[in-house]
Structures are given as C-alpha cells and as structure tokens.
C-alpha cells in the first residue's frame, strides 16, 4: 500500500514536472529569443524562407546581412559627410569632388528631391574644372543630371566623352530607351553585360528586352540579375524586384507583382517606387483604403518636395473619383496640376508627359488641346512606347483618329507587349469603324493581360518604372 502511494506520488510529481516544463520552457524560450539582438531581422529571414511565395533567386537571400535600420539615406549621408571633410582638407582633389558629386546624384535618385541634382551638377563641374581629362565619374554625373532634365541628346553627347565604358554604357542604354532607339539600347546593354556581368547590367538588358516585347528573354535577364546579386546593393536589389513586379503587373499577374513589390519593401522599407506601385495595384483591385495608406506612407516620409508628389496626388484623386467624390478628386488634380505646371519647361525635372496625363485623366474637354500640344513637344525628346501611347491617347480624346492610329502603330511597332497600348489601338479601330481589327486587338489585350478591365485602365499611368 505504502509502496503504491509512493509510486502514485512519484507519478504525480513527474506529471507536474512535465506540465511545468511544457509551460515554463516555451515561455522562457520565447522571452530569451525575443530579447536577442537582431531577433526581428532573423525572424524576417526565417519567415521569408518559410512563407514567401517567391523562390530562389527572386527571394532576397541576404537578410542576415541587413542592418536593423534599413533606411538607405543614412549611409549616403555618412558618405557625403566623409567626402565633404576630405574636400575641406584637400580642395584640389578632383576625384574626390567627383565621388561627392556621384553620392549627391544617388541621393537625388533615392529621394526624388531636385536640389540634390543641383548639388551633383555643380560639384561635378568643379571636379571637371580641376581635372578636365580622364574624369569619367564627373562626366557621368553631368550626363545623368542631363537625363533627369530629359535632355537625352546632351546625355548621349556627354556619355560619348566618357572614357570608361562601364560609366558610359548604362546611360547609353537608358537614354536610347527613352528616345525609342531600341537597337542602340540593345547594343549598349549587350556590351555592358559582357563587360560587367553585374546585377545592374542584366537589369538594364531586361528592360531593353521588355521594350522589345521579348518577354522570355526579359525574364531570363531579370533572373540573371538576381543570380549575380550581392549583399549590400540594397537599392539595386529593391529596384530589380520592383521592376519585376511591374513586369508582372503589366501582364495581369497581380499576385506575383504584389509579391515582388513586398519583397522590395522588405529590403528597403521606404522604397518610394515599390510603395507607389503597390498603391496602383491596390487601386486597380478596388482596395481604395489600402491604396490610400500606401500613398500616405510615401507622402509622409518626404521632408521636402519630390518628383513623386504629383503622382501621389493623381493617385489620390483617382481614389476619390472612384469613390464618387468628384469634388475631392478635382481639388487633388488641381494641386497636382499646379505642381506640374511649375516644373514643366526647359531645364526642369518635371514631365510634360505627366501633366498631359493628368489633363487627360481629369477629363475636362477644354484641357485636351493642351494635352495634345504638350505631348507633341514631348515626343520630340522621348519616343518610347509609353510616351507615344500617351500622345495617341491625347489625339484620341481630340478625335484626331488618323494621327492617333499612326502614332499608336509606331508604339506597337516596337514590339512591346502592352495591354494598354493594344487597348488604345482597339479603341481607335472601333472608333474608325474597323470592327474586325478592333476585335483582334481586344483579343491581344486579353492574351497579354486577361484581367484588363475598366479599373485597370483608370490606374494605367500611376505606376513607376518600366517606362511609366
């Protein structure tokens, strides 16, 4: 009897011990693990591996190397401080001036704030004054500033003077792409890939292939870009994934597009391009509150005016319009219009194309003539498929069907696979009575983007990247 009691007592004790361990151990473990430094980053890495719908190499593989603070601005500020100090000590060192100019340029592209371009431009000029020959970096900065000002001829002219092809070729790719010279862009991209085999080079070649309508090769190049990805290239890593997201968005694969945008945001949580594209995606799906939140997030992180401001306002106006608040939408469009008008003109960082799109989106009949003239001026500088498409849109609204048809045909001749361009072509064909042609074009639209609908059409020009 006593022996049994002891056994029961023993069993109870073990039971209690088991319960205590099963409750206490997880609690202690959770407390210990969550108080470890870098816990959240490691959790993110694990969750990315476990839950991300993206497979290797599309999923970012270097989470472990990410710092807790992933703002891309702080490291650039440190770099600027370093070079400014060096220049204070050695004011005659042209190459350090060029390095500083290059850092200012990266800051400009990251933040979208125009004044950084001005600093980059002036610092590059100072560098060139000190060292007029063999100063590739300073020339490259000037060429990039010219590109930001949409002076593509000047960009190519300066790029031609750059002795280092690694510096010159990327600009030749982008400037030729903007001017619709796909062959030259392709050649430059091929040379760049042969020369560097870098993530940036493959991404540029992917852009050229996309513009040529060669989707398979474009995807292959995006893949190569991610295969040669290195830790620490945060802005490139985020950008390539954002562009891939755009690629899938344009083809109606919204879930995959979203996955890529979100992966970009995991790498760079404040990436404005990824946020704006996500807002566009949500808007297209009718998730207006979510879209508004993304716009709000981009607007909130800007300390000063940026090139993204009018796009945010246009997106917010579309949300209001879709919700039936026409007055609210008009107010936002008016605000965006004010900003765009101030920035349009020679030597400016604004887009005539953006202003024309705003005027067309708003739908005031009195604005159409201006939209047409803005685009007529713009296509003198830019002749990429997207710009030609906007011109054709303006001509369509002006009911200048023949001109619209010839312009949209020029855009489609590039070979680009774009549902919006085929949709425009179908609309023009329908208006000119070519029903059969219109049906063929509508089929092409469905083949490229099976989900292309009215909401998609309204959100068409609210994306960033891939020529948008």
């Amino acid at each position: 009897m006593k022996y049994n009691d002891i056994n029961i007592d023993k069993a109870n004790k073990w039971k209690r011990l088991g319960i205590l361990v099963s409750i206490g151990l997880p609690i202690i473990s959770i407390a210990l693990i969550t108080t470890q430094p870098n816990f959240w980053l490691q959790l993110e890495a694990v969750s990315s591996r476990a839950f991300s719908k993206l497979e290797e190499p599309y999923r970012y593989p270097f989470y472990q190397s990410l710092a807790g603070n992933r703002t891309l601005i702080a490291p650039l500020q440190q770099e600027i401080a370093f070079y400014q100090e060096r220049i204070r000590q050695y004011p005659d060192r042209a190459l350090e001036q060029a390095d500083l100019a290059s850092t200012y340029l990266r800051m400009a592209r990251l933040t979208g704030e125009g004044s950084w371009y001005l600093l980059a431009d002036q610092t590059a000029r100072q560098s060139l004054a000190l060292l007029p020959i063999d100063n590739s970096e300073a020339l490259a900065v000037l060429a990039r500033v010219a590109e930001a000002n949409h002076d593509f001829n000047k960009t190519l002219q300066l790029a031609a003077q750059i002795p280092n092809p690694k510096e010159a070729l990327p600009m030749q790719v982008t400037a030729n792409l903007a001017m619709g010279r796909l062959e030259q862009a392709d050649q430059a991209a091929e040379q760049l890939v042969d020369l560097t085999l870098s993530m940036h080079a493959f991404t540029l070649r992917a852009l050229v292939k996309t513009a040529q309508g060669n989707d398979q090769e474009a995807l292959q190049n995006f893949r190569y870009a991610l295969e040669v990805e290195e830790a620490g290239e945060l802005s490139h890593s985020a950008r390539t994934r954002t562009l891939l997201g755009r690629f899938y968005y344009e083809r109606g694969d919204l879930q995959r597009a979203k996955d890529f945008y979100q992966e970009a945001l995991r790498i760079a949580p404040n990436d404005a391009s990824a946020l704006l594209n996500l807002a566009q995606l949500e808007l297209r799906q009718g998730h207006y509150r979510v879209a508004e939140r993304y716009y709000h997030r981009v607007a909130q992180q800007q300390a000063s005016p940026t090139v993204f401001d009018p796009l945010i306002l246009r997106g917010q106006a579309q949300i209001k319009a879709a919700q039936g608040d026409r007055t609210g939408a008009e107010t936002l469009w008016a605000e965006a219009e004010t900003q765009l008008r101030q920035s349009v003109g020679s030597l400016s960082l604004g887009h005539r194309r953006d202003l024309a799109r705003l005027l067309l989106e708003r739908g005031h009949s009195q604005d159409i003539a201006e939209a047409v003239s803005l685009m007529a001026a713009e296509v003198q500088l830019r002749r990429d498929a997207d710009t030609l498409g906007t011109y054709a849109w303006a001509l369509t609204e002006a009911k200048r069907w023949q001109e619209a048809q010839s312009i949209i045909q020029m855009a489609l001749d590039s070979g680009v696979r774009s549902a919006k361009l085929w949709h425009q072509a179908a609309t023009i064909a329908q208006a000119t009575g070519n029903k059969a042609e219109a049906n063929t074009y509508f089929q092409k639209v469905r083949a490229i983007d099976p989900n292309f609908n009215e909401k998609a059409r309204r959100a068409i020009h609210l994306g960033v990247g891939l020529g948008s």
Partner: protein
Amino acid sequence: MNAKLHRHGILPLLAFLTTLLFLAVTATPGQAHWADMSAAEMVVEPSTVQITLTYPTGLTPFADTNQDDQLSPDEVRASKQPLTTFLENAIRLRNQNNQAGVLQVSPQLEAALPPTVRAAPNTHSTIRLTYAWKQPLQALKIHYNLFLPGVPTANCLATILQNHQLRTVVFTPKNQNLTLSAGLTHLTTGGLLLTIAGAIVWGAMHSLSPGHGKTLVGAYLVGTRSTPKHAILLAATTTITHTLGIFALGLVALFASRYILPEQLYPWMNLLSGVMVIAIGLRLFIQRLSNRYSSHRQAHRHSHSHRRQPSISGELVPLPAASLPGTGNLNVNQPHWHNSDSPHHHQHSHHQQNSHHPPHHHSDHSFHDRIHHHSHDHHHPHTHLPLGPDATPVTWRNLVALGISGGLTPCPAALVLLLSCMALGQVGLGLILVLAFSLGLAGVLTGLGLLMVYAKTLFQRLPVPKRPVKLLPALSALGIVLIGVGLSAQAVMEIAGG
C-alpha cells in the same frame, strides 16, 4: 455696347487675378523649377562657418557684369563688396550671443571649365562664404532668405556638416530659420557634468534594450541561494568586463585599424561568450538537478521529528548531534546543518523547544544524507533542506565567470561613443563617457539582480505551490544554457555569413 465690352473684359481679368492669388496662397512647394533651386554646403567649425553656395545667378545681377548667367572668379572679386552686403542680409548667421559673423565672399572656382562642360546650360553660380567669430561657437542661428522674389516653390537644400555628422535642411520662404548647438567639442563644467549624466542615463536606458545580460543575471540569481551581495558582484563583474572590453576594443580600433576591423572581432567574442555561458549553464543545470534528486530521495527516506523550534534564521539550520555519523542513536542536542532557503521544503514537527538554529554557511551532504537514515516524529513545522554537492551553490567562481561572459561582448553603442570622442580628439572624455555609460548599465543590472533576490524571498513567503518553486533553479539553469545557445548560434551565423 462699351459697357458690355467693359464688363466682359473685366470679369475674365478679375477671375484670372483671383485664380493667381488663390494659387499663390494655396500652392504647396512642389518640384521647384531648376532655376528656382539653391544649394548650400555648410561646414561648422570651432569659430567659423564655411558655406559653398550655389544659387541662381539672377539673384545677384549686379555682379554678373558680362550677363552670361555665370559669376566668374573675376566677377566675384570685382563685386566683392556689394555681394557681401547683399548676402549679409540674405543669409544671416549669429552665434550664442546673437552676434553676427563677419562675412567674407570668395570665388569657388579658380580653374576654367572645359569647353564641353561650359557648353552645358547653367543658370547657377557657386561662391564661397566664410562667417567668422572671435569666440568659439556654442550655438548657431541661421536665417536664410535668398529666394527668387514671388516664387513660393523656391528652396535651398542645405547640408550641414558639424562634428563629422551631416544633417540636411530645406530652407523655403516659409521656413527660413534654423538653430544649431555646437556639440561636444567645447564643453563647460556644467556641460561636462550634463554629458556624463546623459551617458549614465543612456547606458541605463540602452541596457534595457535586448541583450546586455539582463536575462542572464535574472536567470542565474532567481535559481540560486543568492544574496544582495551576489547580485551586486555579478552586476559589477559584468560592468567591469564590459568597460575593459570597450577600452580594449577601442585601442584595437585605434592602433590596429589597418590590420583588423573591430566589427570582425564581434562574432568571435560573441561565440566565446556564448560557449562560456553554455558551459556555466550546463554545470548549474546538472548541479541543481542532482540537488533536486538527492532531496527527493531524502524526502521519501525519512519522516522524523526534531524536537526543536523552527528556524528563523533563514539560512542554515543545525541538526541534532544525535544524527552525527557513528553516534548510533538519536541525540537531538547535537547540531547538524539545514538550509532553509533550499527549494526542497518538507514539513515535519520538532518537539524540542530549545532554541533558534544559528545561521551558518556550511553544509555537508554526505553527512546530511546519513543523518536522515532514520525515522521518527517531528512535532513542529520546520524547513530543512538539501544542499548542493559543494554545499555552496553560489560560488564566487561561478559569479565571476558568468559576469565576465555577460560583459565580454562590448556594446557597439558604447564603442561608437568612445570612437567618436577619439575621432574628435577627446580621448579622455571618451573614456569618462564610456565609464559613465557602463555605470548606467551597472545600475540597471544591479537593480535587476536585487529585484530578483528580494522578489524571490517574497515569493517564498507567499502561499504558492512549493513544487514549481523547486524546479525554478533547474529551469533557470536551462535558461542560461538557452541564452548561451542563442548567443553562440548567432555568432556562428555571423561568422559563417562572413
């Protein structure tokens, strides 16, 4: 007819003017036109501020004598006086005594630009401004008002470099003022004390963030028969190791930065620290588990009565000499030792009313085991407890080793503090601040340790189920092992990740 025309002409004009007024009032700063932008690179030095200013040349047309939208070095020199007068009003810099700095204007570029670059359109000029004061700067008030008149979107992006730190600010017609403090370089006595106090607070606050050995200290102290002295020793050891580690790493960074990067040392120190913690944790776990089993054995082997008063000493309790080995019979007047703080509590009664058990820090388990090989009645409630195999579970060696392992990996924040001061040429200040930082850390760790010790005593007084409490030492030891595993795994991942 005229009146009608007049009316038709006036109304659109009024509408146009109203629109213009509305736009001027409501326009938010947008993407400014290139020609409206300015940029200023400011460098704050002990008693001067250097500004490299790039601005639309149209703002100073009087200096652009050849009207090419560019100020050449000769033009700047020729118009030095009017430029100084104009810019003194547009960009006002004042020190802590509200004294304006003496401004000097000089050209930025002496060399000529190559023809290809000159051909590029440029509407801006760059000049250098130097503001100087007689006294060192302790504060700086900047008033910037160099904008194109009537352009609400005009702005100036200023980068301000001060004590190796860069900050940026955008001056606009609506935001023209900025105040800066001069930083650490010129500290008054009050300022120094304030800085040290700040470092203590920073250290204390920083130690509350993840890591820093809090869990380690807590896990150790909660599971041992620890006293406040032990808590203080553990925190002090951690802090001293931490401070010495930072000094050492700072010196490494200072003298050997060409050969080794301090951040490369971190993972290895983490690994060393982690392995040490695992070893200590395992040792404690085994020790505490064996204590528990031995106490269980005792609990079931005896049920006796010591005719004594319950111990109020709270520490070690003498047992009757009757139970001494070799005595052969029970003699309740012989002392033997119990530890009333041990988690193994079992109650039995003692009839003896003679005295309190004197406190004594001594134990002998073999002896203890042997005295309990008997069975008799106890008539008063009493806690007599098993001791560990070494009879002193809180050993100085354990404490010091654990303290060292907890403080071995220096906190990067403290290292940054030291290196920043070194970079500013304030090595002494750096050492003082790191010491203050570590004192803050020590304060929190000591507080936490004491809390654990006192909370545990309180816990024992509460009518809580005793068995879970008995497991606490073993669980806390297991916790230490887990911390060690976490630290080591993280270090290995860092090392493997390069």
